[in-house]
């Protein structure tokens, strides 16, 4: 059984925001809602700038599921965290619990009240009939039911963002870092992902 995961390679991400655009276009996401976004650290510091694409990470022990007062979250057999929008009350507890800021709240109603929570579905739709208009309207396109992977990962031009079965994604990343060369912390470590501590201010040009 596949266990779906995302992985973003900070060494490859060029902050093009192609994943963000692909997601918004694929699911016709409303203005003000970003299911995926690109975060850049050390912005403008030459040699230390790193970008990473962030969305719902479909946690194995998801805190959003734990705090939801109406229990509208569920996890599919592929490990994808989804929710029922008919049940969601838009309280925002999941937003406070999520370490990635994944839950989004579209403006709803005449006075811009906070609507029901919206988040990355790993392009797996929701609890409506697969590829039905109701599913598309509430949760976006169900690419998984079409045998496809999330649009963001498949659109990534540098293949920084990988998505799919965790075992296969891990194999791809392993091949990549062994081909890239080096060993230990310089390949996997914090400094590779977030820049070296000694390259802080002063290097900015």
């Amino acid at each position, binding site marked *: 059984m596949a266990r779906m995961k995302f992985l973003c390679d900070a060494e490859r991400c060029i902050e093009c925001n192609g994943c963000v655009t692909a997601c918004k276009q694929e699911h016709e996401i409303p203005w003000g809602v970003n299911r995926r976004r690109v975060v850049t650290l050390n912005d403008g510091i030459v040699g230390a700038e790193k970008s990473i694409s962030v969305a719902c990470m479909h946690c194995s022990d998801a805190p959003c599921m734990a705090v939801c007062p109406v229990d509208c979250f569920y996890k599919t057999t592929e490990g994808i965290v989804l929710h029922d929008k008919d049940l969601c009350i838009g309280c925002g507890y999941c937003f406070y619990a999520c370490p990635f800021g994944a839950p989004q709240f579209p403006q709803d109603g005449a006075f811009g009240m906070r609507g029901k929570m919206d988040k990355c579905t790993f392009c797996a739709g929701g609890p409506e009939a697969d590829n039905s208009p109701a599913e598309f309207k509430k949760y976006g396109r169900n690419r998984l039911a*079409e045998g496809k992977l999330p649009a963001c990962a*498949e659109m990534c031009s540098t293949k920084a963002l990988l998505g799919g*079965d965790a075992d296969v994604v891990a194999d791809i990343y392993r*091949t990549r870092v062994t081909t890239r060369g080096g060993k230990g912390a310089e390949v996997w470590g914090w400094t590779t992902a977030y820049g070296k501590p000694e390259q802080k201010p002063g290097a900015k040009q």
Partner: protein
Amino acid sequence: MKLHWLVTAAALAAFAAGCGERPTVTVYKKGEYQGKPDTQPWSGDRFKGDQLAWEKAIKARTNNQNEYTRLISK
């Protein structure tokens, strides 16, 4: 006599107190998903319940993200 009235009034008050009691939560199953059931991704028109075919398609797509093997094999 006064005590009799007091006891009666207290009994009536206690009896009437239960009349307005309504359950505030109709269905509550702690920690369980309360929404609609979802279907499996292979149960739709595209794969018609063939889980193995779906897993094969997903694995092929996932492997397509590895440009090292993809470019060498072609």
